């Protein structure tokens, strides 16, 4: 993509894209908003490590982690689907474990570390799962994809860590299988039904990492 090509993301958040590149973004946002939100909730200072970078904010306690990432840090890779824990589009890794960022408050995570799709890999250095999603056509519209990829990476780790699932026959011996992947990915809905290709991408990466 050429540098001056107009993109949807560019239009949505051009100022923000600049802000996201700046390590001071959190402080800048805080300064703009002052110390009280419109409706009168006291603002709370919080510090997060997002994709390896420390950020500081002053946030209304009502701000979900998802909104902090998207609206304050302008990391718009993480998507808002349902905002109620029902779709998985907002999946990120919190201290290394996948969660729904729409159902937690940013203030609850002072001092925590978050990895989003932007932190897994970059266009120049894709994470193996990102590459596999491209190779296997693991998406159509792409809206669910950041959440799917964060989940898929976590699923392989959870299987390695011996965490059982509803598809596990013997609780003491988890055998990676299509049934395991499908069950464990059930918290990520895809309106375009790219499911078979997502599973293919996961099997590919699981093979790579086991070899």
């Amino acid at each position, binding site marked *: 993509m050429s540098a001056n090509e107009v993109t949807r993301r560019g239009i949505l958040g051009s100022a923000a894209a600049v802000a996201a590149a700046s390590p001071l973004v959190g402080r800048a946002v805080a300064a703009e908003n002052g110390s009280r939100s419109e409706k009168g909730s006291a603002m709370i200072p919080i510090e997060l490590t997002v994709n390896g970078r420390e950020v500081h904010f002053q946030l209304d306690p009502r701000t979900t982690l998802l909104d902090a990432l998207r609206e304050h840090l302008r990391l718009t890779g993480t998507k808002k689907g349902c905002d109620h824990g029902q779709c998985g589009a907002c999946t990120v890794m919190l201290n290394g*474990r996948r969660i729904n960022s729409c159902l937690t408050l940013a203030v609850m995570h002072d001092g925590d570390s978050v990895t989003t799709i932007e932190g897994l890999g970059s266009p120049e250095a894709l994470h193996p799962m990102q590459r596999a999603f491209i190779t296997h056509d693991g998406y159509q519209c792409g809206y669910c994809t950041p959440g799917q990829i964060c989940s898929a990476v976590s699923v392989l780790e959870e299987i390695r860590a011996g965490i059982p699932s509803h598809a596990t026959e013997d609780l*003491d011996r988890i055998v990676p299988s299509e049934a395991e992947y499908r069950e464990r990915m059930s*918290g990520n809905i895809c309106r375009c039904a790219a499911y078979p290709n997502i599973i293919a991408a996961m099997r590919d990466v699981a093979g790579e990492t086991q070899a």
Partner: protein
Amino acid sequence: MKSFTYERAASVEAAAKAAASVQGARFIAGGTNLIDLMKLQIETPTHLVDVNHLGLDRIERTTEGGLRIGALVRNTDLAADKTVRRDYAVLSRALVAGASGQLRNKATTGGNLLQRTRCPYFYDTRMPCNKRKPGTGCGAMEGMSRSLAILGVSDACIAQHPSDMAVAMRLLDAQVDTMDADGVARSIPIADFYLLPGDTPNRETVLKQGELITSVTLPKPVGGTHVYRKVRDRASYAFALVSVGAIFGEDGTARFAFGGIGARPWRTQAADAAAPHGARAVTDAVLADARTTPHNDFKKPLVERILASLYRQQEERA
């Protein structure tokens, strides 16, 4: 979301005090149920007391040979715990049958017990609901009641308790350990923990304002074959229409607890006593006082079919 103030509690005692002294205060653990309900303004706490940093996230053996599960142990970690997988497998099975991998990473033992009903009218603030707004009536009674309860219901409310984990806890005779604002601890048998709706469906448990669940304690393992069977509208990531947790003994005895059909996780002595006589007898015993609607009477044959299937599976094992 209505605005609220927030604090991270520094100790169990301080958490209980804070929640008892501020009008409208609530604890927040995983947040996966409370925040959902706050977004819909079904829950409107004025103050949140974050209990995530109180060291309540450990699983320990008790001197009686049982297991003490900290209230903040995440559903994923509880399901994966070695002792739980070996000695209380029905608990692992029930946990992994619930919600999604992401949600289980966040959801806690205490929060799961206290999650609120999934009655669609409770969720729709334009509809009457005695649980959400006492005295307004029940939208479900004459409405869409397919998912709702058939046991322990009242004229005021027919909501089902939605938790899978709580069904296993009921089956295992868990105790809910708490501390109140005066620093007084108590242990509540899970059989006495949940209130039936009666005329006050807004009151769901025996907990007092500011009483914090600190742990859930299991008695020593009972052995046997542990199973959890959940039937729902899709294969995963959906609440139970009917679920059955069961422990089959070597000698033909068994115990059963049921989800999706009760105002609280459901277990009866009569059903356990009927175990040697098979699925039909257990069904008759547990459903003797069932009260159905045209939308949810399918749950009665479904209970029997699940039980029959579990018995068949058990025979094949033997």
